[in-house]
């Protein structure tokens, strides 16, 4: 594996991405895990299949991991090869709707929160 993934863990102890994942049907969960398995094994420097991962926001980069109409937004940790999977939305049309925009905006906030907590030693260093 060239990349690993983990769910974002919020201040209040919730994991919004994981909650969304658990609400998916088994086939959709397999679809999502297939995307993780594919992308995790894509060699650095190569692009993953467009049907599995796409860019949702540039600078900072937020990607969406796909499972049918489901999109799971993710950002990269500052050092290392782990992508933090934050939130979820449904993409019904050709373009991302307002709900999707809000999830991407929240992902950017979550990224800021993640970086701050990691630097403060309160994210991974918890008991």
């Amino acid at each position, binding site marked *: 594996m060239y990349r690993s993934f983990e769910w974002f863990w919020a201040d209040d102890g919730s994991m919004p991405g994981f909650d969304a994942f658990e609400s998916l049907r088994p086939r959709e969960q397999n679809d999502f895990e297939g995307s993780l398995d*594919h992308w995790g094994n894509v060699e650095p420097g190569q692009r993953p299949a467009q049907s599995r991962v796409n860019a949702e926001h540039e600078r900072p980069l937020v990607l969406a991991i796909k499972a049918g109409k489901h999109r799971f937004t993710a950002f990269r940790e500052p050092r290392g090869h782990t992508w933090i999977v934050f939130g979820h939305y449904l993409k019904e049309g050709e373009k991302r709707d307002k709900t999707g925009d809000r999830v991407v905006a929240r992902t950017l906030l979550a990224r800021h929160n993640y970086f701050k907590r990691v630097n403060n030693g309160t994210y991974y260093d918890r008991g």
Partner: protein
Amino acid sequence: MAHIMTADEARKRRGGTTLVERSKRDPVRAAQINAIVAEASVEQLLQRIMELEHVTAAELARRMNAKPPQISRDLHGGLSRATLSRLVMIAEALGYDFVPAFVPRTKDRRREKFIEAYRGLIPNAPAKASAPVKSRTGLVVRSRSSHTKSVDRKIA
């Protein structure tokens, strides 16, 4: 300055297995996930060949006498429903041969050689497509020289 723990270090400390590893303990789920990975690898391989050959989706559509949205669908998950003849046509339009291959899962050196040779033909081919664990979609083998091209690597 205090040491800041990374995700990898935290994971090692936690131990345990990953979600995909746990799901793959179920053979039915493992088969479904592996099929999705194989399809994604074929799509990625097609993207890679198009980059190597400097062929855009519009150009591929022109060569196949198809509409650009059809090619766009192929490149965004449509290949999972593609017929073998469709793959043959795509390969033909790219100047490649589509070679179906059922490769035994043995530890035979010839298997490794086969995979090495295939990877040699298409630089940076997706590992899982070139290691044909599942060969339902076969292989695409280059039949003419190509040049690499700088591509957008923001996702890479």
